[in-house]
Structure formats: structure tokens, C-alpha cells
């Protein structure tokens, strides 16, 4: 069973990668771009009895250290 963690910098934290991407795209004429954030996407394949158990495991892995609650937020999804 596959799950994915979507990890993004918290809105109140300066996202240097997002800012660099946004600035670069602006120089290419994408002036409609108002905000941009760069995060991580982690795919986890786990053995689980059912989807809710698998989701729990994926969350436990996130909490173990795949995201840093001080500076990031995450969402988990079943694939």
C-alpha cells in the first residue's frame, strides 16, 4: 500500500526556495504569479491490514522526523 506525505514550509516561515522560484518565473514574464512555495513529496510503501492502519503508519513516520513541526506542515494521502 502506498501513501504520500506532502510537506510544505509553514506560511509564517520565510521560504527561500519558493521566493527564488517565484523571482525567476517573474523574470520570464509570469507576472500573474503571486506566491510560490517549494516543499517535499515523500512516497511510502508500507505493509498494512487496511488503509486506515496504513495512514496511521505514514503519520507516525512523519511525526518521527520526516517533517519538522516548528517550520513545516504536512498532509498525508493514500495513493
Amino acid at each position, binding site marked *: 500500500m502506498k501513501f504520500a506525505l506532502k510537506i510544505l514550509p509553514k506560511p509564517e*516561515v*520565510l521560504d*527561500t*526556495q519558493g521566493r527564488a522560484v517565484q523571482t525567476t518565473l517573474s523574470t520570464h514574464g509570469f507576472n500573474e504569479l503571486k506566491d510560490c512555495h517549494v516543499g517535499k513529496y515523500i512516497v511510502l510503501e508500507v505493509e498494512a491490514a487496511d488503509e486506515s492502519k496504513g495512514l496511521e503508519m505514514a503519520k507516525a513516520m512523519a511525526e518521527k*522526523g520526516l517533517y*519538522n513541526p*516548528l*517550520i513545516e506542515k504536512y498532509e498525508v494521502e493514500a495513493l
Partner: protein
Amino acid sequence: MSRVGILRFPGTNCDRDIWKSIEMKNKKPEWLWYEDSFKPENYDAFLVPGGFSYGDYLRSGALAALSPAMDSLKKADSLGKPIFGICNGFQILCEAGLLPGALMRNDKGRFIDQWVNLKLENESGWSPFEVGNSYRMPMAHADGRYFIGEEGLKSLKDNQQIWLTYEKNPNGSVSDIAGVMNEKRNVVGMMPHPDRALFDWMGSLDGLKFFDWKDEA
């Protein structure tokens, strides 16, 4: 002679600098390998050197923080042993929850390698102890912007846990913070490199003042 455990992870590269620093202070350095647990009782203090543990994968220090040696280091902290993390070592201690806050990409996005002047803001369990004094040494990092939320910053200030500040903020760190300590004051961390200011020919001797601790036998 004090025994000092120096932690090594894959990608640590300031380990020999730290070894030399400890030797110069007439203490006995010993290697501690990240895959191995150790007995904290056998050591008087611990150093976590700089480098690029795990190639900075995931987040700087994040994977190193989950290694068996770090579980032993947490036991050392619970015994009140002095623990000092420098550069990547500071990042690892923050990721492990032994120090408050996080180290993020420098505000201008660049790796910065330059000399900095630091001010000792509050006394910790580690030397130097002369609050208000200034110290000069190199910094060399991309992920050194110290971040902590408003509440956390207030608590750092209230508890006098800000250890060192930059005289001129190079990387956008909150409140110019270059180093912090935990509440018990036995764990400290800083981004600049005292281990690169040990001899006149290096440009400064100030680094040597950072490798002693209180109540040293």
C-alpha cells in the same frame, strides 16, 4: 584527564578539528560512531562536530538526529552531561529536540563563508563565561538562519537561553541569534566555528575559549 566523546556521522567533516581542539585543552578525545550506542557515564562531555551528515538529506541534521548514538546522547543530557554542537552539530541537536529552534536556509539563499564577531549574551554551562565579551571566528554554512516562533523566542529571552549573537547578522537569524542553550544550560549549540580559530595563523585564537565547561574535574 576529562574524557570527551566526539560523535561522527556519515558526512561529518570537522571531526579532526574538534579532536585537535580537545587535545589542545589537555583533555582526552574519543570517537563515538553514529551506529553504536554508548554509555554516557563513561564520558565527561560530548561534542557534535560540523559537516554535512547524510549529505543534508531531508533537512540538515534530521537523519543524524535519529541515529542510535543520539539516543545515547539524550541519556547523557538526562544525566546533565555537557553537550556542545557546532554548525551541523547544532543543527543535529535542534533536530533531536535537545535544543530549541531550527536552522533554515540563509535568507539570501547563499552559502556564506566569512569571519564574524559574536557577543556572549548569557552564561551557559560551557565556556566562555564573560557575558558581554566579543569573539571572532569563521562561519561557513548555507542552513544557519536560526528560526523559532514568537512564543519560543519569548521563552528563550525570559529564560536567558540566547547564548551568542552576531554583531552583524549575516543570514537573517531571528534576533541575530548565533547560538542557544537548553533550559538546564548543559546543552549548547552555535553555527560559527570555534574549531577554526585555534592558532594565530588561522586568524584568531578565540575559538580555544569555547572548549571548557563548568565544574570540570
